[in-house]
């Protein structure tokens, strides 16, 4: 579901199961930096909701407000159908996990994991059974008597996760859970989180600034910009159709091409005249698209909308892209395209380009961020240059 405006609270209208977490118009924090305003969203049991945003957007503030670690200025936080807005953290049924595992060094793994049960007065037999089960779920069943400092980094993360879920919280709040890990461990802990989330049908709210993690872990992604929820959508929809240029930039969509909408359904740009999928207000506009929205063709192919010269090949582990320079009347622009159909490209080669308009977002420059971007792009011709960011 998309919002019509960055200022409007967003509600997902699709029928969902009863919300494990319902955040309504929550405002928390203060000042211009790091606070969040009028945040509204829901998370169902078993759903993984990931919040992304730049530093200072208010992600951690929002998570801490849900957990009750900081007060909310306005709005309500409902967990399992009950209003918990004014309850102490221990009475909210929402566990907050920090970026680094914060195991108690004076307790062994068993006692660490048993902590939430002991403070609730659970009987010893049940504690033993539940701790054993949850340690088994995170592959730590042989580590019960170990002290935290004897565990590896991954084992500490898994122990902290086990401690968080042993009391079956209504919501699990994870603040940058993978950011301190190396790539191999990152994948391991990500799979562990997803595994226990499935097994225990946990409602997860995960804050991250890593888009790969967000895409791999989320059922839905919420984009937090300047303290407001700018868009909520499933990953595929969000990456294909960001609702504003600011969101597109946050999502690291590399191609921005300035143009002009002539008659509401055709955009003229250095890439030629391209038909728009939806009627758009006439005037200046910016197209934003991912590298895989461009089809590379032979320079003479009739389907090509324009041609360009290969200026650089960029090899990455997961995707190889190519920078293509397109000449135009104003000034040349450079765009980044994925190599899918023409693997034998070389620098200096002329290729034809065709845009998949289903995967192109067009933003009228009436939006404040777009007008700023257009000025920037007009002066720089393009966000990309051969020596630009990859």
């Amino acid at each position, binding site marked *: 579901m998309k919002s019509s405006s960055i200022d409007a609270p967003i509600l997902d209208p699709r029928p969902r199961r009863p919300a494990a977490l319902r955040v309504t118009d929550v405002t928390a924090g203060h000042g211009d930096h790091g606070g969040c305003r009028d945040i509204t969203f829901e998370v169902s049991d078993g759903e993984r909701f990931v919040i992304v945003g730049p530093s200072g957007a208010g992600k951690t503030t929002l998570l*801490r407000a849900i*957990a*009750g*670690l900081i007060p909310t200025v306005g709005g309500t936080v409902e967990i399992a159908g009950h209003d918990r807005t004014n309850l*102490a*953290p*221990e009475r*909210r049924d*929402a*566990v*907050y*996990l*920090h970026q680094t*595992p*914060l*195991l*108690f*060094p*004076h307790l062994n793994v068993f006692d660490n994991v048993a*902590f*939430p049960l*002991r*403070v*609730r007065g659970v009987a010893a037999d049940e504690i033993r059974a539940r701790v054993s089960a949850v340690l088994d779920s995170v592959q730590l069943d042989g580590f019960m008597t170990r002290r*935290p*400092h004897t*565990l590896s980094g991954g084992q*500490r993360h898994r122990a902290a996760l086990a*401690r*968080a879920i042993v*009391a079956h919280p209504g919501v699990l*709040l994870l603040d940058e859970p993978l950011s301190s890990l190396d790539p191999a461990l990152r994948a391991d802990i990500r799979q562990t989180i997803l595994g226990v989330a499935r097994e225990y049908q946990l409602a997860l709210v995960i804050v991250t600034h890593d888009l790969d993690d967000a895409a791999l872990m989320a059922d839905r992604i919420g984009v937090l910009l300047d303290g407001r929820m700018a868009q909520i959508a499933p990953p595929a929809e969000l990456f294909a159709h960001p609702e504003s240029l600011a969101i597109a930039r946050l999502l690291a969509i590399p191609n921005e091409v300035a143009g002009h909408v002539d008659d509401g359904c055709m955009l003229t740009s250095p890439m030629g005249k391209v038909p728009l999928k939806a009627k758009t207000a006439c005037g200046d506009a910016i197209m934003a698209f991912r590298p895989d929205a461009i089809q590379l063709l032979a320079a003479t192919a009739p389907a090509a909308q324009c041609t360009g010269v290969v200026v650089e090949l960029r090899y990455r582990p997961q995707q190889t892209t190519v920078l293509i320079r397109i000449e135009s009347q104003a000034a040349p622009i450079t765009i980044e395209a994925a190599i899918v159909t023409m693997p034998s490209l070389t620098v200096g080669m002329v290729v034809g380009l065709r845009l998949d308009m289903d995967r192109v977002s067009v933003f009228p420059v009436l939006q404040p961020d777009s007008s700023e971007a257009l000025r920037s792009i007009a002066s720089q011709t393009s966000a990309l240059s051969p020596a630009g960011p990859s």
Partner: protein
Amino acid sequence: MVLLVIWSVSGEWFFPALSPQRWSLDGWRWLLGGGRIAVAVRNSVVLGLADGVIGCAIAFPIGRAISRLKGWRRYTAAAAIFSPVAAPPIALGIGIQYFVLRLGVGGTAIGVLLAHLVPTIGYLSLYFLSLFVAFDRRVEDEARTLGATARQVLFYVTVPLMRRPIAEAIAIGFLISWAQYALTLIVGGGAVHTLPLEVFSYMRAGSGNYAASSALVMILPPLLALAAARYAAGRTALSPV
């Protein structure tokens, strides 16, 4: 230290002799024989332990509370709690004496303990302030969301995490009381005998071997405390893992 040991086993030792003219274990026999000095040692130990434990119990929450203040409030509170320590002991003693006399505990061990607590709380509050400023409060936050009440967090998380600094603080409190002379003399009025008072009286009386053997007994606890503090410092784990 060596001089004290030699002096404690001297019978006669007059200028300009470089070593005692006569050796004697009278000082140690008298010390180990009990009597007045034994009472002084017992009083010093009891007062020191009480001062360490009570001072720690009071300074712990004070240091914690001050650490949560920001900016000038923190500095002002820290200065206020430390100001009695900065005052000259005699001036402080006279002020405290008035207070304990009003309470009706002048010249008693309770009065002396109250007097010793004033500098102890000042020092230990700053000690705990420095620890809590560096303390990772996220672990307390996480414990709260795991279901622990504020009281449970204090007793099951914070205090166990700080058990070694707490032990050090008790040792510091003990030593502050152990070495007090002026406050004990002023507030105790000579009725409460502690080891520093005894040592000083022997020195004034010219009983060098008695003073030296008593002084050696006084040195022993600080040495033990220093050794314990060094051991604890290497093992202190204030942070979660």
